[in-house]
């Protein structure tokens, strides 16, 4: 049980780190930025799972709702505005 | 030493003797110079003639108050210097008005006449006068320095500033003279003496060739007469100081006449031997040669 949990946690952590790396590296904007945003949302999502493992259901809920939900939406709102501006060809 | 009324006629007597001696001495030395140059020279009473002539001149002009006062300052400086210094050692009669102050008074009073002269010449508005003053003042700052050092050395040596005391310390034989007890100081002082006598090589101030006679350019008639009087008194008064400090003073008038004459001759000899310095040259000369002597004498005193 314990080992299984630990292994699962390890995997989760690796997945988080991978997503994080995707979120912060890479150049360019536009499409690549939305990938980064999604990746960071994914990090939050994994984090909320991790919080469950860490016996913190309250935190998990919050992280899921705010960290991966609302934040990601905020990003996309702004990104869409900015991207639209770029299409205007200013 | 206190003031007594009798000192006034005595002082006037000294003054009278010195004026006459100075007049004759000046002419005599001119004559010697001429004879050396195989000329006839002026008669021995020439200075009296000049004096009378100048006082007698009817036309006289003035450029202003200071111009008028310049010669007065000048002559006051000469007479004052003479009277602040005892002339004959040991003689109550010819100790003059030296009760008023000591050596320092004499040293600083020299400038009184210089200042008055410079101011009077300044008001004449003649550029040559100003140039002469500029040169004279520049030179005197360097020339006075060795004298000041020597005087101080002597004061240190005898631990007094009183001229009478200094002379009395030199009594008792030639070898007691400062000349022999403190030769460095005397050497420095004599170099300074050369610089203050307005003779070659330090006569750029009067510079007869380029700036006709320098500061007194504009002076004439009775002004000039006063200055001539001073020219008779001042060198003698100055030599009296030197004599008292370095050459044992004079206990009687004959000794006085002789010593003054001989000391005067030093500057004459040097004058015929050397060409004229420019101002900056003479300043450097004093600083390089005379000042170190003075410093040395102080350090050794």
């Amino acid at each position, binding site marked *: 049980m314990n080992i299984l949990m630990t292994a699962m946690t390890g995997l989760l952590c690796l997945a988080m780190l991978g997503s994080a790396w995707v979120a912060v590296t890479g150049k360019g904007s536009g499409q690549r930025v939305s990938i980064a945003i999604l990746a960071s949302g994914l990090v939050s999502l994994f984090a909320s799972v991790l919080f469950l493992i860490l016996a913190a259901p309250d935190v998990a809920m919050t992280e899921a709702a705010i*960290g991966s939900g609302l934040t990601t939406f905020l990003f996309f709102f702004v990104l869409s505005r900015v991207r639209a501006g770029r299409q205007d060809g200013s | 030493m206190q003031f007594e009324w009798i000192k006034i006629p005595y002082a006037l007597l000294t003054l009278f003797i010195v004026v006459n001696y100075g007049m004759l001495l000046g002419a005599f030395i001119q004559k010697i110079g001429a004879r050396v140059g195989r000329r006839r020279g002026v008669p021995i009473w020439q200075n009296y003639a000049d004096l009378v002539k100048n006082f007698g001149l009817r036309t006289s002009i003035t450029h202003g108050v200071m111009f008028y006062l310049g010669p007065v300052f000048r002559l006051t400086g000469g007479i004052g210097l003479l009277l602040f210094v005892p002339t004959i050692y040991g003689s109550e009669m010819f100790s003059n008005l030296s009760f008023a102050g000591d050596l320092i008074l004499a040293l600083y009073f020299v400038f009184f006449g210089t200042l008055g002269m410079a101011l009077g010449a300044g008001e004449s508005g003649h550029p040559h006068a100003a140039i002469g003053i500029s040169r004279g003042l520049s030179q005197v700052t360097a020339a006075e320095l060795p004298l000041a050092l020597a005087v101080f050395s002597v004061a240190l040596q005898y631990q007094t500033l009183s001229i009478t005391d200094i002379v009395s310390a030199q009594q008792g034989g030639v070898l007691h003279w400062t000349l022999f007890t403190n030769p460095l100081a005397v050497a420095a002082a004599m170099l300074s003496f050369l610089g203050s006598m307005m003779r070659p090589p330090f006569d750029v101030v009067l510079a007869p060739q380029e700036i006709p006679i320098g500061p007194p350019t504009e002076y004439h008639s009775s002004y000039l007469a006063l200055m001539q009087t001073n020219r008779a008194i001042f060198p003698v008064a100055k030599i009296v100081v030197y004599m008292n400090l370095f050459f044992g003073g004079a206990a009687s008038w004959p000794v006085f006449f002789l010593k003054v004459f001989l000391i005067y001759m030093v500057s004459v000899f040097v004058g015929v031997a050397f060409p004229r310095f420019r101002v900056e040259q003479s300043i450097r000369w004093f600083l390089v040669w005379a000042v170190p002597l003075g410093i040395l004498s102080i350090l050794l005193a």
Partner: protein
Amino acid sequence: MIAQLSIATGFLLILIGLYGALIQRNILRMIVAFTVADTGVNIVIVAVGFMAGRTAPILDAAVPVADAAARIIDPLPQALVLTAIVIGLGTTALMLAYAFKLYEKRRTLDIDKFTDLRG
């Protein structure tokens, strides 16, 4: 073990996030990087309070009041993290609004272009 693993992950997330924030020139991507780092901080905080073999700090039938002290984990870090998450959101929203305005003004999101004030 889980705690250490999580803390390590949190730290790495912070470092990765800061790395992104330091090298990305695009302002939006900087903000994304900061959210990653924030997540890392939250994980560290919760993990520090974690105690293996205990339950969440909620009392119910399974965890009676009497032996709560022996059964639950430290609730305080969780409370702190809630606060931290919300504050993180506030900051992110603010930065995003800034990003939008900066873009509106200059038509670029390149941080190197906003260096007018210096020295």
